[in-house]
């Protein structure tokens, strides 16, 4: 199993009352609350933590994209990935992901990803995402076209990375006269492509298509949903496309905190995980999460039935009980992840070891403890420890 350390890079110096005052830490929170001096310290500290992960033997480090929010300070993960490109030496650098479809011309990102891949000698993982609902408010893109643009942008980018140019691309949303990327990516035929998601049949059917076989990463979800969606990938591959999906095509992402004992871990992590879920994550309205057309009416109806929009008030106990986060002593954390692997067989694990307003010293302790006490037991895991996929009865 590959273990990756993901850093969300939240603006941790946030006044806890702002969520109530401005209804959300997204889009509506005035940027006067961002102090560039504090931001300077935070960026450098977060980058240090990712570099530390490389030194400690993580297989990868990961960054992502969010706009106009204190939740995560990376409107351009290309910038953080570039900073890591020269400072890390062996680990993969995963951009999880970039919203190519939100750009007027997705080739600008394709060029930047190719540059990072060439500079690092092929250590880039390229995540293709649509962005969460709020990004459509921040960047103006019409959510009604989101799925279409996402698929078309991916087709354009993969062709740009793999086909000899110049050629022209005529899509519905993108019309590009000259496609001829300099540089081409280092990895052949192109960097691995991942699809981080919070659970979507549409994404799975698209990612699992035999022409793509993109890695599907289920994030921030209850254990039961993780199992269901990861099985769905294998099921779609088998029944819709007639092939057996390899376990390295699926991954699970979750916040993880390791303490000396279960009790200590819970008490230490509590304020930070609750800040993440109750202050940084909530949106001002359901529509901010799910703007019109962002997902099909069927998926939206399904989500609204099963998942109340998060408006705060969650506790660490409920997050742990649902398996959305993993918190405890090294033994507890190791066992829980190994149990999940035994049941689900994912070969990619993306851990979020810094969250909320964790002080630097606490993050480092978490990263080091996880790397020393938990990770060595995970990295050797293969399909031998996976109980195997049982297709659901038709």
């Amino acid at each position, binding site marked *: 199993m590959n273990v990756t350390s993901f850093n969300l890079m939240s603006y941790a110096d946030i006044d806890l009352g702002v969520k109530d005052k401005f209804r959300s830490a997204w889009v509506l929170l005035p940027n006067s609350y961002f102090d560039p001096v504090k931001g300077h310290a935070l960026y450098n500290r977060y980058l240090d933590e990712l570099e530390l992960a490389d030194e400690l033997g993580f297989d990868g480090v990961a960054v992502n994209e969010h706009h106009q929010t204190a939740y995560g300070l990376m409107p351009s993960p290309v910038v953080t990935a570039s900073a890591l490109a020269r400072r890390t030496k062996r680990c993969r650098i995963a951009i999880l992901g970039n919203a190519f479809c939100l750009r007027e011309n997705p080739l600008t990102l394709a060029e930047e990803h190719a540059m990072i891949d060439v500079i690092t000698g092929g250590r880039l993982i390229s995540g293709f995402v649509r962005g969460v609902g709020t990004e459509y408010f921040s960047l103006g893109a019409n959510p*009604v076209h989101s799925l279409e643009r996402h698929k078309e942008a991916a087709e354009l980018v993969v062709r740009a990375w793999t086909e000899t140019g110049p050629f022209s691309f005529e899509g519905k949303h993108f019309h590009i006269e000259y496609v001829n990327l300099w540089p081409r990516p280092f990895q052949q035929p192109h960097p691995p492509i991942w699809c981080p998601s919070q659970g979507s049949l549409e994404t799975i059917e698209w990612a699992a298509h035999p022409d793509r076989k993109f890695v599907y990463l289920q994030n921030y979800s209850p254990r039961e949903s993780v199992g269901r969606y990861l099985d769905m990938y294998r099921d779609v591959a088998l029944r819709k496309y007639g092939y057996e999906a390899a376990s390295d095509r699926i991954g699970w992402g979750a916040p993880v905190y390791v303490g000396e004992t279960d009790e200590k871990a819970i008490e230490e992590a509590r304020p930070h995980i609750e800040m993440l879920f109750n202050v940084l994550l909530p949106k001002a*309205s359901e529509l901010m999460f799910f703007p019109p057309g962002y997902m099909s009416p069927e998926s939206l109806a399904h989500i609204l039935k099963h998942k109340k929009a998060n408006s705060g008030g969650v506790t660490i106990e409920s997050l742990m009980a649902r398996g959305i986060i993993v918190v405890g002593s090294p033994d507890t954390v190791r066992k829980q992840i190994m149990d999940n692997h035994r049941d689900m067989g994912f070969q990619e694990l993306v851990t979020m070891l810094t969250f909320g307003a964790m002080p630097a010293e606490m993050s480092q302790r978490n990263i080091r403890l996880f790397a020393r006490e938990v990770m060595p037991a995970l990295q050797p895991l293969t399909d031998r420890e996976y109980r195997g996929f049982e297709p659901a009865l038709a």
Partner: protein
Amino acid sequence: MTFVAQTLAVNGAKVAFNRGGAGEPLLFLHGADGLTEWPEILDDLAQTFDVIVPDLPGFGLSEAPAFVDDISDVAYLLMDMLEQMNLSGVRIVGHSLGGWAALEMAVRSCERIRSMALIAPAGIHVKGSPKADIYMIDPDEQARLAYADAELGAAAAARALVSKHQNQAILNRIASARLGWNPRLYNPRLERWLHRVNKPTMIVWGDTDRIIPPVYADAFSGFMPSAKVVKIASAGHLPHVEKRAEVCALLRNFLQD
């Protein structure tokens, strides 16, 4: 008044509409919420007009055809529809998004239009006077804001809370966002062609409209100097619902000329 539900294929796309009453033709174009709540003023108007009430593309029972990407496509589709139904001398009453669609038709051709009454039409932007962001606030909040009267607003919010997760409401929001997301419910190039509207036009606005502020009525007046502008006291974004009798008399009077 009885309305009959019908459909018509326009350029291969199914357009659903209700038709009722007798007299000369009147086309009513609904706002961004579609016709989930039927405006009873249409029953009043059907006493003197042949009232035709389509679901705009993607709304209600009308198909969202692949050839409708923006308001321009909607305008051409409606013009084709009038042509296909062989209607001329048409009065158009358009509310909000529907008022915008009416204007987009009229700047292209007024040939089949006799007059227009536009109720709080979208379509333009007044710098410094944002519309309410109906794509960000939840539908119940939007319903509350749409009325000047707090009690009517609260009742509408309660209804929206029930209907907002229903399939039809979801589809209507998608149809609305397809046309109005970016820029928000306007076409930057519309105002420069508004001088082409050469048929009698009335602009009706609730004086306490919190969805599209009444200052927009004055802006329209600037672009269309011959248009008659009427503000309705103590009415929000739905003056034809909130002040039905008053607006009905106004429309009859204007449209009967």
